[in-house]
């Protein structure tokens, strides 16, 4: 089971942020640019062996949304 804290840590690592929270918004709160979001997606894909659907990225705003997306990608 992938925990939300694991995704928070991965996001923090990519963005150089110490302690991102689950409900932090990637762009608004964490200052992520589109390349940062791409790097986060690739990091999560590699770490958890999932394939994240590009179309589903339209619904991702927060770290929690990313966590949900990774879990859904695992199920497919």
């Amino acid at each position: 089971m992938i925990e939300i804290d694991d995704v928070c840590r991965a996001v923090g690592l990519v963005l150089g942020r110490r302690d991102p929270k689950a409900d932090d918004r990637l762009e608004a709160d964490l200052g992520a640019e589109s390349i940062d979001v791409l790097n986060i997606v690739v990091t999560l894909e590699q770490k958890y062996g999932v394939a994240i659907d590009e179309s589903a990225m339209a619904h991702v705003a927060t770290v929690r949304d990313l966590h949900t997306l990774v879990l859904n990608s695992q199920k497919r």
Partner: protein
Amino acid sequence: MALPQDPHRPSPVPVGGLRKLVGLEEAMRITDDAAPFSVVSVFRLAGSLPVPALRAALDELQQRHPLLRARIVPEGKAHAYLFDAAGPIPLEVADRDGADHWMRVVEEELAHRIDFATGPLIRCRYLVDGGGGDLVIAIPHNIVDATSAAPLFRELLALCAGRAPAGTTDITAEGRTPAPALYPKGYTGAGLALAAAAQMGRQMVDEMQFRWNSRGVRTAPIHPIAVGHCRVLPIKFSAPASEALVQASRQHRITLNSMLSAAMLSAVQRNLYPSPRVPLRHIIFSDLRSRLSRSVPDDMLGCFLTMFRLTVNVERDGAFWDLARQVQEKTVRAARSGERFVAYSMAPGMMKMIFGLKAFRMAATAVSYAGALDMSVSGGPFDVTGVHAFAANMTLGPELSGLARLFRGELYWDLLYLDSDMDAAGAQTIAGQIRTILESATS
């Protein structure tokens, strides 16, 4: 067949409320003064959308969105939105005359100036036959961008299908607060002035380098504004080809926006700039919504778009991924320098200068990739089978521009050029090379 319209139909609530146009929304009004500057979107429908249902949906959409009931009027030396002052959304219905009929209608709409003084700031045309229809909607760029267009049209299509739209945002204050009023700390007052001064310094250096490196290189033609007419050239990548682009983007850690930009720059260089190595100006766009001190919801109409103009060195035989990385690095550098806020605020002055001098083109190319678009209307009487969007251009703008998005797993890239810059065959050649460049890079 055109539906009867009553231009004197009273507006739903008393006329009132002014808000001055600022930043890019004012720059877009200035542009529209010279040449119509609308975004024209197309929804290709299969199934049945009766005209009365569309009429009712447009009326309901207008009731929901203050900016769709607004006009733009002179206010002292400036211009302002006057809310609750526009008549109903014009709807023109015609029999569909072939599969490409919508493209001719888009070109007509790109050339049609929406009357800001009378409003409303939206027009709709519906081409219909027994199998479905094409919905063509034109909106001035002042009040819409890629981010707010998607929920607006989802709302419209849901209303057309007789559904309640999903949005929960209170949009009664739509259009009332301009982006600069929400700039984050560091980009207000003296902070913005400092950032603007730094940006102007960088631009001066960039301009000198650009001129030096452009010696002996073709200069883009400058025609009178009235000479150029927008021509559309949609290209589409199959689902497997689109997936290959996504995978290559992840493998190389280059955004799709940078990949599309590199392909367009490379093709334009090969066809229009025959030198082995040329600096080209390229425009990309960014959304301010999530960068403001208070996030603006996506479903609130407005112009929260800003732009970065990059100078990119393009080599005829250069590697695609090197060029894409160059675009990406310059984009990130511009974004992190706060250029998005400076560019938004300085846009009116820039446009006045460009129209005043009439001495240079803003850029060679421009690309906007909006991500994946969901326009499904589940269980409705019609289905959306294709989505296109074009932003108008004029003779001082880029030589080739394009809006792109993923829809149902396929990349739609809607290119736009001016017939004063190239003919249809020349544009087709460039489009073909764009496709070849991307397919080679991802094979």
